[in-house]
């Protein structure tokens, strides 16, 4: 086993180096990317084992202590997010290898750029999850944002380019708001270390302004209702592997920071009303996103609106976690829903890509016959849909069940109504797709024989999402050593 410090650094440096290699030697890009994806999976598993065996790990880069130095930090929550990135990453990379055929007219020569950009995105995400310095997080946010925008722009279509442009402007504006908030925090507390900020937090007007600025920037990036307008066009017009990465991982990065800020860094000054407001925006996202998903005529647009709705569930954790006895359940629920959604949504987008590949379109009402010709793809759709609705034994079920628990324990019954209505609406939009895909036709319209490499990555992801609640206990163990939930003091690792 490697020492934890090396793993923290490698998780960031490895994809960054691989990105440069993949960019300079496009011929080896795909093999390099797949090897690094496998390596990152092993590294994150290794880190998870180390952390569950001991305590959260803090590594001061260059041996410099805070407040001057910048530290990397891994607790249970960060490790779960890094593992999520690694699992979705390797599955999507395997799918993308089969999806992007050389000389494909739909995507053209820019396909070669997918690999370095994907690696850059992974480096940014890992750095974001493992940073505990507020300004370092700003830099990682920009890394993630710029590579995500460039990935959308791989598709040459005018609507994809326009969506990428709007995504870029939104992303930059969000980062600037976040940075202004960081500046206000530094002005008062003379530190950028999130743990030191947590310890010295005072309820001053400037601190409140900082919280509002940082949260609004992150909500814009997480596409929380009513700031979700940029997400459906960007996620639905990108190539399928890119949509999978964006919906599964990139929006979660912003939510992860909101969770850390609200439940830990700003814990002392967050008021009940502010937390309720976050929950109400989440509820708005669930209702609006689901209704738009019900109305969507294209499969990819439906899946993108479903992301808007599913992001809403995550934000319900913030008001629910404010009550003493319910905070662990609420935060675990958010993590379950985030993981389940990441796997299910990535799987769903791979099936959408497959439908586009075989049918040449993704109109929902013309999807009949898919299950006859491509039973595995249809099965993947069903499993992923099950996790999105939250049927047992999926991770979505576990998350919603924990959320219901937290709502009852804290006496906030109104969120129960939101959860139930949201699940009904999710069932309605998932069954809308499933019923068309499973319609049997006399004459099968699809002649293309499907490469098995286009089917198994999605299937594995969907299986993982659908069986996530069976893997519940190890996840709980990992979360228990998270500072977000238990307030474990940080331990210094020896340099």
């Amino acid at each position, binding site marked *: 086993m490697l020492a934890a410090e090396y793993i923290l650094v490698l998780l960031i440096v490895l994809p960054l180096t691989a990105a440069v290699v993949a960019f300079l030697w496009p011929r080896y890009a795909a093999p390099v990317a797949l090897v690094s994806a496998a390596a990152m999976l092993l590294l994150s598993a290794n880190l998870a084992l180390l952390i569950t065996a001991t305590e959260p790990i803090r590594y001061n880069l260059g041996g410099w202590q805070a407040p001057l130095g910048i530290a990397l930090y891994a607790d249970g929550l960060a490790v779960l997010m890094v593992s999520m990135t690694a699992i979705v990453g390797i599955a999507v990379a395997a799918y993308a290898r089969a999806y992007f055929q050389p000389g494909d007219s739909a995507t053209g020569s820019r396909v070669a750029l997918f690999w370095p950009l994907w690696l850059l995105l992974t480096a940014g995400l890992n750095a974001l999850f493992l940073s505990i310095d507020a300004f370092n997080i700003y*830099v990682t946010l920009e890394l993630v944002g710029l590579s995500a925008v460039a990935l959308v722009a791989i598709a040459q279509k005018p609507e994809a380019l326009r969506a990428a442009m709007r995504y870029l402007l939104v992303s*930059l*504006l969000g980062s*600037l708001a976040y940075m202004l908030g*960081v500046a206000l925090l530094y*002005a008062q507390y003379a530190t950028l270390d999130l743990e030191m900020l947590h310890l010295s937090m005072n309820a001053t007007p400037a601190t409140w302004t900082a919280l509002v600025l940082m949260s609004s920037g992150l909500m814009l990036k997480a596409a929380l209702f009513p700031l979700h307008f940029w997400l459906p066009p960007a996620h639905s017009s990108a190539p399928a592997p890119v949509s999978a990465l964006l919906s599964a991982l990139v929006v979660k990065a912003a939510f992860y920071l909101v969770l850390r800020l609200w439940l830990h860094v700003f814990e002392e000054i967050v008021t009940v009303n502010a937390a309720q407001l976050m929950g109400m925006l989440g509820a708005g996202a669930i209702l609006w996103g689901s209704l738009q998903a019900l109305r969507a005529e294209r499969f990819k647009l439906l899946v993108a609106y479903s992301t808007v709705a599913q992001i809403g569930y995550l934000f319900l954790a913030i008001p629910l976690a404010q009550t003493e006895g319910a905070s662990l359940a609420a935060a675990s629920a958010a993590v379950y829903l985030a993981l389940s959604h990441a796997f299910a949504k990535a799987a769903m987008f791979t099936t959408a890509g497959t439908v586009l590949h075989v049918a040449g379109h993704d109109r929902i009402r013309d999807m009949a016959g898919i299950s006859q010709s491509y039973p595995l793809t249809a099965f993947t759709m069903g499993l992923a849909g099950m996790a999105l609705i939250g049927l047992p034994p999926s991770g979505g079920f576990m998350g919603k069940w924990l959320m219901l628990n937290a709502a009852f324990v804290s006496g906030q019954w109104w969120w129960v109504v939101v959860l139930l209505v949201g699940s009904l609406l999710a069932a309605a939009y998932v069954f809308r797709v499933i019923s068309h895909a499973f319609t049997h036709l006399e004459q099968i319209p699809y002649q293309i024989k499907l490469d098995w490499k286009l089917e198994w990555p999605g299937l594995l992801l969907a299986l993982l999402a659908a069986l996530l609640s069976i893997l519940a206990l190890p996840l709980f163990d990992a979360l228990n050593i998270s500072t977000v939930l238990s307030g474990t003091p940080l331990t210094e690792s020896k340099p």
Partner: protein
Amino acid sequence: MSAEHLYLLTGMALFVMGGVYVVSNPQLLGKILAINVAGSGVFMVLITIAYRARAEYPDPVPQAMVLTGIVVAVSATAVALALAVRVRNASSDNDTDKTTEE
């Protein structure tokens, strides 16, 4: 009102003005410039924070943040301009509106 407050408020005002322009104006190039104006506002706030009235030297940490911020802003602007050119070319191929977003 001290000079410090004046700089702080000007920085904030620039940030708000840039932000409002990005949201309200349809011109793509204008939006990209407005993002830069908003960014300069944030940098101005940081530089003001670095000023310490009684100390001999200013605080280097916010200055380092501004330097990093400028690097990020330059690259982001480059990406935005490159993308804007491609949006424009793609739109003129299809004979639609040229420089505005949708």
